[in-house]
């Protein structure tokens, strides 16, 4: 089976004006970086891949995942996780409840969540209020929340831009190592060249 994320002839227009066109294939465990100035439509492309394109835009082409055309599927059926520059932990849930939010049904939920917390060095943080975490801790929980949901692809929207320099390196390594280990294709948009370098994969320039 082909577990790649495949963007086939994706063209996006805004009010009839062509914004971007992309055609690429991201193999499992690999990262492709989209770079371009703001306004080049990077985030719009991610919206299209997620399945939530704003009606101000029109798109043609298709998104394939695991050998299946997912273009017509609603976002929650695509199983494409996304990470933003903010961790966006649900502020009304505990850390453990955040992790449980996307965890598919199954036995030993508690044990799996505890293990996941231990893996990111946050042993015993389950009952904590996410607002009390440091920026780096919250970013790790956000990553783990996405991975626990068993995504088939991962999108990164300027994911490291709000972390300070020391943390940024650490977080980059964690995200890319994890994605490789899980064997998910990763599509990243950024305007930080260091991000692209750390990702090590192909770079596509927009705009």
């Amino acid at each position, binding site marked *: 089976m082909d577990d790649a994320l495949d963007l086939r002839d994706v063209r996006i227009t805004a009010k009839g004006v062509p914004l971007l066109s992309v055609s690429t294939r991201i193999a499992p465990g690999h990262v492709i970086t989209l770079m371009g100035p703001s306004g080049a439509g990077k985030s719009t492309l991610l*919206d299209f891949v997620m399945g939530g394109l704003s009606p101000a835009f029109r798109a043609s082409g298709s998104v394939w995942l695991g050998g299946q055309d997912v273009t017509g599927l609603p976002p*929650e059926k695509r199983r494409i*996780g996304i990470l*933003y520059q903010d961790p*966006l932990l*649900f502020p009304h849930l505990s850390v453990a409840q955040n992790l449980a*939010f996307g965890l598919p049904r199954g036995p030993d939920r508690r044990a799996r969540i505890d293990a996941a917390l231990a893996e990111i060095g946050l042993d015993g943080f389950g009952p904590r209020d996410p607002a009390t975490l440091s920026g780096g801790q919250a970013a790790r929980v956000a990553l783990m*929340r996405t991975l626990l949901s068993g995504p088939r692809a991962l999108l990164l929207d300027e994911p490291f831009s709000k972390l300070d320099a020391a943390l940024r390196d650490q977080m980059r390594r964690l995200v890319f190592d994890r994605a490789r280990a899980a064997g998910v294709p990763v599509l990243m948009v950024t305007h930080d060249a260091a991000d692209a370098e750390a990702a090590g994969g192909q770079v596509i320039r927009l705009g």
Partner: protein
Amino acid sequence: MLRPLPLLTAALLALPVLAGVIGTLLPALGHAPAIGLDGWSLAPFRDALAWPGLTEAALLSLWTGLAATLGTLALLALILGGWHGTRAFTALERILSPLLAMPHTAAALGIAFLIAPSGWIARALAPILGLSRPPDLLIVQDGLGLSLIAGLIAKELPFLLLMSLAALPQLRPNARLKTARSLGQGRMAGWLKAIFPGVYRQIRLPVLVVLVYGMTNVDVAVILGPNTPSTLSVQVTRWMVDPDLAMRATAAAGAVIQLALVLAAMVFWVALERGAGRVHRFWVWCNHGLPERPLRLAGIVLATIAAGLVLFGLASLAVWSVAGPWRFPDLAPEFLTLRSWMRHGPEMAQVAAITLLIAGLSTLIALALTIGCLEAEHRHGMTPGSRALWLLYLPLLIPQIAFLPGLQSLLLKPSLVSVTAAHLVFVLPYVFLSLGDPWRAWDPRYARVAAGIGAGRARVLWQVRLPMLLAPVLTAAAVGMAVSVGQYLPTLLIGGGRVPTLTTEAVALAAGGDRRAIGVWGLGQAGAAFAPFALALILPALVWRNRKGMRNG
């Protein structure tokens, strides 16, 4: 599934108003089979015009409405221009905000108590002026409608102030004021030149609502307004509830005259806006300043008086409700007693239950419709235009007195259900206006993150968005409840006098003059409006007490 909701909601707002206006027009033109009028004639108008007080009542409506609106707006400008961003302003805002919840009726009753010749103000002045008896002055219900205007200003100032504060952040007032002052403008002149026009543009519809309410309200005008004659709306209401059914046609004609008067006033207001705009531009062009200190002083003093009128009015109601014997110049009763509460309390509690039931039901429906519309907007990327905003304001811009009589005769049999439905028409706009901004301000990336880890739209709504927006949802519910609790005319007319609420009973008592009873009922009405706000503040704080990220909305 949610797609048709906005249309349904629009219909729910517009149809009752339009049907009601038509239902008022028909009997005014002599066509009302239900009361034995069959055919077309101008007789109802002749009857209305034959009432000797008509011209004076119409002028009174115009004068009190326009003066109250202009007064509120002027005070708003003084307060915002002179004090926005200062510590005094924050304090004033804290005092004024809760007053928004106060029903008009309770506020008017309290103010009437306060300024009456035997009220606290006269009592406080008695030793200075050497009075041993209440002065023989017609203060409440004075012929010029001055106490009515004062009451309206005191009650509408918090409304316009909160509307302005909601509009302000996007105007970046601090940066603009700094720029203006660095160019040599005084604080107030700079504020009024650089920021106020933007504020006014944002609160234009609320200002028109104040104008319409000021001209056509019945509950405040009955309590504080003149009596010989009264304002036109009060007279139309008297005709409406006259046991002689033939008077309904006269009432309808009066309502049509009132509607025409309101439309004329709106046209006049728009002309006034243009003129004011021209004067404003001229003022900016010539680079004139303002007498800053006296104006700032006037602003803070007048706003404090406005807040004080409502607050001490409420205190008057409270003290009278527990007052034993209370002779004139004494500032306090001889002793306090719960006798009035024992006598009126049980009945008041029963009526309070009905009132809260109607308020709860209409608010629940309004909330469901509002959330449905906002969610449809979010899911289908619908963007409401300015027309949608006008629609939302429609039931507030067409005077109640112009369409409720028609609605009553056309559609509805008096019952709890019909009163609830009528309340919904007025509750819905306020719930929508209250919830719309926080709902739209919610970060949609939360929805994408949740969808990315497998949550469908319904789950995102129920498990992420609604819990995160618990505080604004509850606040909107409290606003809806307060609006419903305060409704007088819809309850009276659609309920056919058979569905008593705290408001109808309090207004009915006002004519009597049993101050202890009025105190109990007025306080009960205020309490019914305040209690949901208290809950809306306390509940989120309790539910999310362990969630720091939920403190600020």
